[in-house]
Structure formats: C-alpha cells, structure tokens
C-alpha cells in the first residue's frame, strides 16, 4: 500500500504529553533494566552453564512461538484481523496428538524379541509421524471451520465485529474442550526414543548441561516447517495467490483468483502449523489441558507483533526472539521466574508503544495499523 504519509499539522497538548510520557517510560525501563542486569552480573553472577541452559530452553520455546505466530501473521496479512482463537487451534492439535499416542500405546504389536511390545515402541518414528499428522489435520480442520462459521459471515464488517466473534470462538473452543476432556492436566506418552528429560550431556564450565532429545527434535522440526512454509509462500502457485490476495483482494479476484478459497487455505495452513506446535508442546513439556493454547496464543501474537505483523520472516524472528527474551529476561533482570509472563506482555506493550511496525515490518499506513 503506497498510502501517503499524513503528518498532523499541529500537535495538541495531550499528544505532546503522550509523547513525553512515552519517552519517560522508555528511559525509565531502560535504566531499570541496565541496573538490574549490572546487579545480576556483578553481585550474584550465574555460570556459563546456567546461561546456556536458559538460552537452549528459550530457543525451543521460541521455535513453537514462531510456528504459532506465523498463523497470526498469515491471517492478519490477508484479513487484517487478529485470529484470537488461534491458540485454541493449537490446543486442539495438542489433544489430537495426545489421543493418537494414547491409541497407539494400546495397540499390541508383538515382535519376536518382545511379545508385550505396543505399536508406539515397536514403530516409534511412525507413531510420531502419525501423531503429528492427526494433530495437524485436526487443527487444520478446526481452523477451516472456524473461518467458515465465525469469520466468513462477517467479511466486510467493521474490524471490531470479527474480533469480538473471534473472542467468542476462543471462549467456546476452550470451554468445549474442558467439558469434553475435563479440567485436569494430561500426561503425554512419548515413544521411548523421545523420552522427556533424556538427552545429550555437554560439559560447560565444569557442570553438565542436558540438551534434551525432545528439545532438539522440536526445534529442528519447527525450523523445517518454517522453511517449508517459506518455500510454499515464495515458490508455489498457492503461495503466489496468497500474496496476491494479501496485497489486494479485489484485483486478485479480477486476475482469476478465488479469494474465498485462498482464505480458507490460509486458515488450513496456519492451523496445521499451530497443530504441529501443539503436538510439540505436548511432547516437550508433557502436560496439556484445555487451557494450554491460550497463553502461548497471546504470546505468539506478541511475537508476530514484535517481528512485524503481516511479515512471515518477521514472525519467525519475532518468535525466536520472544522465546529467548522470555526465558532470559527473569534471569538477566534477577527477578522471580514466576514473572516471565509479565515480561512477555511488557514486551508486547513496549513494542506497540515504541515501534508498532515491529522489527521487520514495513512502515504501515494509518489505516492498516
């Protein structure tokens, strides 16, 4: 959009006051952070092993955030709406993977060596693939129907209306899952090769640091999925159609692109990525319940904003950055780990105040912002 930048002719007192307050907040936050960080480094310094551990868990978390954030960005790029229920799509994917593992766990597959073996341990790689396929397809389906039921009838309505509808859908899905599966947390059963807590041990600064198999698996898979998505968007016909629709729906329709179909497919793709993130979340963290998608959803939105909403590489970078900042933040600032959510939300607020276009975002025109 090549909208002409509008410059306000005269700033009112309150606008100026807002600017002053923004500056004051910014400077205060920076000074406070520098002081805390200095304090942490000098008074009670952590060893290199602790920092490595934190950075690794941040990267793993960031990979999952990035996958979810791509979904927000894809949908925002095309419809200019925040798909508030995207976190719930991830939750559905997570439950899909859980049930896949639970079923595979109970299929007896006796082999010559061990007659009591079940499918999940006889064919571990196949089980993981099945779990991901089930989780991703369930999440895709829910994304598709979400768009069809809750958003499509509101196409063209003012922005507040689909947003409220999305909030409603989010509450609905969360509570439907609670009613179906109960409020208790559920334990993911991983195949033996991906046991949680096991991994390679690396010696750093004299103490062992475990790099878990589940963590490496999640991170590598999320990077692979991101590369796949990037290729899809840049190289294929579908990707070109998606970019065209994101730029200008009307012209895209005139060029023979079925806009509704492309929007549906966008929801399917973003649902699949969120579903994959959901299964990873279960495999890596172990516990899921109906609420599992909500906070990651909001944080992934933060990541999308941080990277520049509507921008796919931005969402990836934003996700990884947020994951690292969120785990590194409490340690670097020397505050309670309980407050890591506060750090994520503060980043959201600060980014929106100081640089709403994000790290990679273009300077958005007033209307799009």
């Amino acid at each position: 959009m090549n909208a002409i930048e509008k410059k306000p002719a005269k700033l009112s007192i309150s606008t100026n006051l807002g600017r002053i307050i923004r500056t004051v907040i910014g400077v205060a936050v920076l000074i406070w952070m520098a002081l805390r960080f200095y304090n942490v480094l000098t008074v009670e310094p952590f060893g290199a092993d602790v920092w490595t551990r934190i950075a690794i868990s941040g990267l793993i978390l960031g990979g999952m955030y990035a996958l979810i954030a791509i979904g927000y960005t894809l949908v925002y790029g095309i419809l200019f709406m925040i798909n508030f229920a995207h976190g719930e799509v991830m939750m559905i994917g997570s439950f899909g993977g859980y049930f896949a593992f639970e079923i595979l766990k109970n299929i007896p597959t006796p082999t010559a060596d061990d007659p009591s073996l079940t499918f999940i341990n006889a064919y571990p790689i196949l089980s993981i693939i099945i779990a991901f396929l089930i989780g991703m397809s369930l999440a895709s389906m829910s994304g598709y129907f979400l768009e069809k039921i809750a958003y499509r009838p509101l196409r063209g309505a003012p922005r507040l209306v689909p947003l409220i509808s999305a909030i409603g859908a989010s509450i609905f899905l969360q509570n439907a899952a609670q009613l179906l599966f109960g409020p208790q947390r559920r334990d993911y059963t991983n195949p033996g090769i991906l046991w949680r807590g096991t991994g390679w041990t690396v010696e750093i600064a004299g103490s062992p640091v475990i790099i878990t198999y589940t963590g490496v698996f999640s991170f590598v898979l999320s990077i692979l999925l991101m590369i796949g998505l990037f290729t899809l968007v840049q190289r294929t016909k579908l990707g070109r159609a998606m970019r065209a629709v994101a730029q200008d729906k009307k012209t895209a329709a005139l060029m023979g692109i079925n806009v509704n179909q492309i929007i549906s497919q966008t929801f399917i793709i973003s649902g699949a990525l969120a579903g994959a993130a959901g299964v990873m979340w279960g495999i890596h963290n172990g516990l899921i319940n109906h609420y599992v998608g909500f906070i990651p959803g909001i944080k992934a939105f933060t990541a999308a904003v941080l990277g520049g909403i509507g921008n796919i590489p931005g969402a990836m970078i934003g996700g990884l950055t947020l994951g690292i900042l969120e785990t590194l933040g409490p340690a670097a600032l020397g505050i309670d780990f309980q407050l890591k959510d506060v750090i994520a939300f503060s980043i959201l607020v600060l980014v929106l105040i100081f640089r709403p276009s994000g790290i990679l975002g273009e300077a958005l025109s007033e209307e799009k912002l």
Partner: protein
Amino acid sequence: MKTKHASPLQNGLQAGAIFAILIIFFILTGFNETAANLVGRVLNNQVPNQLPATINLVIFVILMALWCGGMAAKKPELDAPDRYSDAVFAGAVAGLLAGLLSAAFIYLTGSIAAAGTDMRGYFPEMSPDYINFYLLNQPLMTAVLYHFGIMLVGSTLGALMARGIGRSSWRKKLNQEVSSSTKKLSQNSAFERVMNSKYSQYAMFALLAAALIILPREWGPYWNYLMGTVGIYILLGIGLNIIVGLSGQLVLGYVAFFGIGAYTFGLLTSPQPHAIMMNFWLALIAGVIMAAITGILLGLPILRLRGDYLAIVTLGFGEIIRILLKADILEFFTAGPKGLRSLAQPTLFGQSFSTDVDFMYLIILAVIISIFIANRIEKSRVGRAWLSIREDAIVSQATGVDTYRYKLLALAIGAAFAGLAGALFASRNQFTGPEDHILMVSINVLCLVIVGGMGSIPGIILGSFVLKGLPEILREFEAYRMLAFGALLVVMMIIRPEGLLPSSRPLMENHKPDSQEKNQGEVVEDAAHS
C-alpha cells in the same frame, strides 16, 4: 459472487452433519442428562439425586430431531420453487444422516462400555450409569434403533411442520419481530399517549422506587447477594459501555481497573498488610480516583493505537496486573495469593450500615447515580464527541474534535466506574484476592455490553440480568455457561451486532455493508474505519 442454489439434498446433508456433531458433543459432555433434568423440571417428574427419567431424554431427542428437520427445510432462493416434497426430502435426508452418525456413535460407545472399558479417563462424563441412561436402559441394538428411528421420523416431521408454518429465514424473522414489536409499542398512539403523559411516568417511577425499596427487605440474603452481583456488573457494564459502546475503543483488560479499585480499597482498609484502616467512604473515593488515574496512565501511551492492537495491549495489561497481584515478590505490599481480608464495612452517621439489605441499597444507589451520570455525559458535548470518534475518527478529527483527549477521557471515566464497582465488590465480600480479577470478568462484562446492546443503558441492565442473573437461576446449566457465552458472542455478531436492546441512536459502525458491497468490503473498511 452469488453462490449456487442449495439443493434440498445439500440442505439436508448440511443440517444432518451439524446435528450429528451436536448430538455427539451433547452425549460426550453429559449435556443430555442436563437437558433431561430440565425437561423433568418442566414435567415435574424429577426425583432428586437420581438420573432423570428415560422419557425426559426421549422428549429431548425428539425436540432435537424436530429442530434438525426445521433447519433442513430451508426456504429456497427467490426464484426456485418452494415445494412440500423438497422440504420433506431435505428433512428426511438430514434425519437419515444425523440418525446414522449418532446411532453409529452410540453403538460405538455402548459396545466399548459393554466390553468393560471405562472411558472416564479420557471423557470424564462418560460414566457407565450415564451410558446406560442414554441407551435408554435398553439393550444396545434396541437403543441404537430407537435413537435412529426418532431422528429420522422426527426430522421428517420437523421439516413438514417448518414448511407448514411457512418460515422465512429465521434470523430475519427474529430481527423483524423484535423491531416491529418495539415499533408497535412506541407507535401505537393510545399507548404512546399514556406512556408519554407526565403522570404515568411519575407512576412508573414511583412503582420502580417502591420495588427497589421494598424488595431488598423482603427477598432474603440469597437474592440480595445475587442481585448485588448483578448490580455490580451493571456498574461495570456502564463503565465499559462508555469505552467500547460510546467511544468505540475495544478494551479487553477492563478487569485491571476493577482490580485496582478493589485493591486500593482493600489496602487502605484491611488490617493486613498495611493497617491503614481508612474510613469506608474515603477508601471508596480513593479506589475510584486510583482506577481513573490508572486509566489515564495506561491510555496516554497506547490510545494512539487502533482497535485490535488496543484490545491486545489492554488484555496484556490486565494479565500483568493479575500476575503482579499474585506474585510472591510483592507479598509485602499486596499480600500475594492470600488476598486481603476483613475490609471496611460502610458506616452511615456513625452507625454500621453493613447488612445485606443495607448493601443492596448501597449498590442500588450507586447504580442509579451511575446511570444518571452516564446518561448526562452521553447527551453532553463530550458524549457527542465520543460518538463521532466511534463512527469515524478521521472525519471527527477533521471537524475539530481532539480525538486523543476524548478517548483518554472515555478511558478514565470508564475506569472510574470499574474502580467503584471493584471497591463495592471487595467491601461486600469482605475479601479481595487475585482470583477475583481474572480475565473472565473482562469477558463477562464485554459480553453483557454486547449482548445487551452497545451504547444503550437499558441494554446493559438487561444484559446483566441475562448473563449474571439467569445462570444462577438455571443452575443445571452452570457448567455450560461459558460455552454458551462464547457461542452467544459469535451468534450475536453474525445475526444482531447491535444487541438485544440497541440504543436509539443508530450504530453505523456495526452495520455490515450491503451484500452488493461485500466484495469491496475490505476496501471500504480500510478507507472508512480506523
């Protein structure tokens, strides 16, 4: 982009699939039992502490089947013939599909249960008793056949009935009926004359005042508690209405202001952890002012952002406040997860004024004053500035409205109402803790504003009664309340975005462009709304 005409077969398959999913969902969540209980309450054949009678479930399934048929028998497009045979065919197809799928599901769960597997590990509602209940206490195959037969016959009958009644599209009908009935009331000249005469208005006021004075004395502590909660939610609704309904800024972290009001009040009056022990009225005012100041401080940097961003930032802010209240490191200041106890009670001229009846009066008084204030502001220059910002911020700025300042004012005033509600809530409960200030409160208030009608105070009062009062009365549905809220928000946005009792001023903002414009809707939206 006109879609093709839906054939009866398509209509039938669609309705059948939707109802099959619905029935399976109802079975899995245990809703069948709840619904049968409700039927039992209507028929008055309920035995306490027992599963409801089988006949109640059968009645519920029949109702579902009739509804399914009604959904299937859609009115065809204008130029297609509207035939009985089509409707009946669609109904039969819907019944067949829904019956087949639900029967297959019932057979599956029934046989799993018969094999002795307990499904409660995965689906907590699926107890053997409950499975037996929806199998109608019959052998498996008989029950499956019953369910299938009821669905098929009921759906066909339902389609026939719907066609016979001569349905138009039900949403349009609902809208027409509501608006025509309100119109009728206001246009009927005799009625209008009576309503508008001064004396009848005095009489109405007198009646209302008498009811408000007498009822809290008569209906006992339970109703006082319930109606007090409704009153507090009316206060919250009035405040959020100023922000969302009048000035058009979507704020999702409204609970933060509620929490700040409650905590300011609590910290000033509780013996722990500060022992300031301030007077009730002073602390109440402090809570209101503190919430308003927070509103301004939050608004100054972020009100530049528009719609959806603002929603997420405030949502994040609400979560930050809740986490900080809960955090252990702030325990010396906010008492952490324990919360604040034994807060001040209202006093009046040195007398204690804190029974449930007194509190009900206090809340009623607060609501009346708030309604008065909100009404006066809405009709003032400020209110008109808000409305112009809501309809079109750019045009309103061009006509000389300082949009930033007025948005800030809206946020501050809305926050002040939330602070008042929070302080009253904390004082009435004698307690406030982090769990009183969860996100769900924001969502509830947003729901009641939207369901009642954005920008309309009667709508908010109705919304509070519907969303806070009704679920307490329909106790069976307690577990399904949030589910229904979510569905209600989506449905309201699709069929009636202006709410049940919309304000008399037309809400242009909420109206979809006409269907011809739908394709260019995005363009229109981008250009016109910011």
